[in-house]
């Protein structure tokens, strides 16, 4: 599988290295050179310095032939715009993004975007744990 990951955040870097070690072809885009260092020496995929809402950076990352696109920068709006740009311009079968703001996540689920909202997930997990009998 060929995967393009936008945002070399902790999640982005971890996902990239995991996928790479399983044999997937992985490209990571980040605008900050120091974030790309998170990938470490074992990572043999592509790392691209650029902005994910810019088609040029996406093309450099090989979005034309990608099977999946993941947007995990720390900015919700950047992830939302990048995911929609990729959906609109390139026919990528799998698109996944992170949105921290739970209300924004809810709003955009109406547009059939596959959104992971860590805020809601974490709160739910904690609540479940707390409600269990000790």
């Amino acid at each position: 599988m060929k995967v393009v990951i936008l945002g070399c955040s902790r999640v982005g870097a971890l996902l990239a290295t995991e996928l790479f070690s399983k044999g997937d072809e992985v490209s990571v885009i980040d605008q900050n050179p120091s974030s790309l260092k998170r990938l470490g020496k074992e990572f043999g995929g592509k790392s691209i310095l650029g902005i994910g809402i810019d088609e040029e950076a996406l093309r450099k990352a090989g979005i034309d032939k990608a099977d999946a696109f993941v947007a995990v920068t720390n900015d919700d709006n950047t992830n939302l715009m990048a995911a929609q740009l990729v959906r609109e311009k390139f026919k990528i079968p799998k698109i996944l993004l992170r949105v921290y703001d739970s209300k924004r996540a809810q709003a955009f689920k109406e547009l059939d975007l596959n959104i992971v909202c860590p805020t809601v997930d974490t709160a739910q997990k904690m609540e479940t744990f707390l409600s269990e009998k000790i």
Partner: protein
Amino acid sequence: MYVIVVGGGQVGHSLARLLMAEKHEVLLVEKDPARYSKLSEEFGESVILGDGAELDTLMDMGVNRADVLVAVTGMDQDNLIICQMAKILYLIPRTIARVNDPKNEEIFQSLGVDATVSSTRIIGSLIEEKIDAGMFIPLLALKGGEVEIFQTQLSSDSPLIDKKISKLTLPQNCIIIAALRENQIIIPKGDTILKENDTIITLVGKNAKDTFKKLFL
């Protein structure tokens, strides 16, 4: 009209001032506290502190009553998401976004923003026009770029001059909506005659754009 302006930088600031002078009801939204307190000296209760993409901010400003929302922050991704939220959640009839990178105009429109304004593109074209008369300056794109409004100055060899408008053969789906001659604004009728150096404003459908441009070459 009730207009919400998101982004209190130079563009948002002068836009809010302009709209107020024309007696519109305006609410300016700024997320930076320092800039907000400066703006509140001038705008009082018409400016609020908040993030235009956060639901609570939008609720506080009575967003569902708004006729138009204009997003003019310096970040394209913010302008897009603010406009989309306004459409999805509050069914605001009209959203307008500032586009900082002209490359993003097309995608904004295909994602539902009603109109986009790219100052970069307009300024660029205006400068070009000073160099070369007959340039086509895009002013506004509507309905996902299906229709555009252009401005152009007529040169001495333009096929449009010195003839009655009714005698011109314009392509389908385009119409001359105004002509500017010195300080005069002319709303053209069939017997209007365009002259050299007139600046004309035209409404052109997407499919007619190329044919229309050729008329000026």
